[in-house]
């Protein structure tokens, strides 16, 4: 749908704030897991992937270790496939290592209803039996519809359901920033 019918309300993160936040999350991940042993970072397409890659880079910078990076396309696991008119594009899922007994850091841009994460958990578990799965998100905007919470949060942003969080990333959108947009009418939400 793009950004038609949406009005920009505020920029809540700029490039520098985003960079600092990812640095903090990368440190928290290493601290909580007492190092990088068995870690695998898995980004949820689309914007979880560049975020995951940046966290991987940060960890390499201060730990000198390249943590394996995967990407997950959850389309085939969505719970709303029956209700959308055109089948959404399915991109590939690439998990470069065996996930058995690994610690998976699942990365996404925005945590909202929790349905995307539910789909991601189901898909990951089809690849094996990780020791644990932890969730890292840039923005937690509330409004959960499932009992899911994040282990690492960049920023909690209370929102109304008429608002939309737009995460722009250099790799996908040419610039790094996070905006709050407001819908002109009550169009569907994700």
């Amino acid at each position, binding site marked *: 749908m793009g950004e038609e019918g949406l009005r920009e309300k505020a920029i809540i993160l700029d490039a520098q704030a985003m960079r600092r936040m990812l640095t903090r999350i990368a440190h928290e991940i290493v601290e909580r897991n007492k190092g990088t042993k068995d870690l695998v970072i898995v980004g949820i397409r689309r914007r979880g992937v560049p975020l995951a890659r940046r966290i991987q880079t940060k960890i390499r910078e201060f730990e000198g270790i390249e943590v394996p990076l995967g990407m997950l396309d959850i389309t085939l696991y969505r719970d709303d496939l029956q209700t959308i008119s055109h089948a959404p*594009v399915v991109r590939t899922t690439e998990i470069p290592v065996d996930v058995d007994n690994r610690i998976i850091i699942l990365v996404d841009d925005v945590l909202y209803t929790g349905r995307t994460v539910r789909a991601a958990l189901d898909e990951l578990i089809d690849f094996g039996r990780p020791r644990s799965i932890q969730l890292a998100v840039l923005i937690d905007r509330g409004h959960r519809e499932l009992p899911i919470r994040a282990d690492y949060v960049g920023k909690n942003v209370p929102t109304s359901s008429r608002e939309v969080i737009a995460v722009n990333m250099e790799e996908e959108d040419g610039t790094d920033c996070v905006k709050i947009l407001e819908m002109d009418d009550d169009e569907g939400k994700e």
Partner: protein
Amino acid sequence: MRMDDKRDLLDLESLSSVEIVDLLDTTRSMRQVIDRPVKKVPALRGKTVANLFYEPSTRTRLSFELAEKRLTADSINFSTSGSSVAKGETLRDTVRNIEAMGVDFVVLRHGSSGAAHFVAREVKASVINAGDGTHEHPTQGLLDVYTIREKLGKVAGLRVAIVGDIAHSRVARSNIWALTKLGAEVVVCGPTTLIPADVELMGVTVSHQVEEALEGAHVVNILRIQQERLKSNLLPSLREYALQFSVTSERLRVAHPEVLIMHPGPMNRGIEIAQEVAEDGRNVILDQVTNGVAVRMAVLYHLSGGESLLPVGLEGVA
């Protein structure tokens, strides 16, 4: 694929190159699902597929069944022997009865050209043509093009030779539509009696000399020669055909050194394809079979989806 309220895959002739490329891209993602430890995704959970095969088929039927299982659809199978068809039921009545049981998809293989189009008009379920007479076999066309694209990295600009019984081949027709839409140069080759009149109108060139057709070819797709063609006097003998048109290592020397050798199966070794070519390292016949499952998953997935007009995925927003 008609993109109105009901979606069918009846032929490749009516698809745009964009729709074909979309299906090929989805196929790549499905191919990756097949390689996972758990080879199953829940995308078609709760959907039911009826596989109606009015002609014998092993490969295509198994391939569709597997694709349905990989997507978690339920399937029911119907073949003509021992069924109500043997009791004289018409195709229209059969499909209406099966639809009344609540199916979402009908996969149809039938000996009459146009059967899938006919059924699509009769039922609300999405219809997938699994081969209709001498008309089209769209999923075979897609899997052949997918295999070429994966192996050679592109389709546009390639020279593809299709050798065999072009006139009676739905595989040839679907291949020609897909290949020409994606910008390949297609040459068809076979005896005059097995080349349809005006085939050039489909955007291909014709050759009656196999060496000429294979010259510089990046791909050769070898079609099965059926014994029935002897009965209708279109061929003097299989030996005569093999002498003139069998694809042999010797004849392949003029092709591109990395030529892809394809065959939709089942092969008549020593007739349309020489024994040594059937074993040649450049043949991708088994890749075609694997890709067939992924292509059918992609087609089923694309045809699914509800009636509502909710916007699809707010990309970049959540």
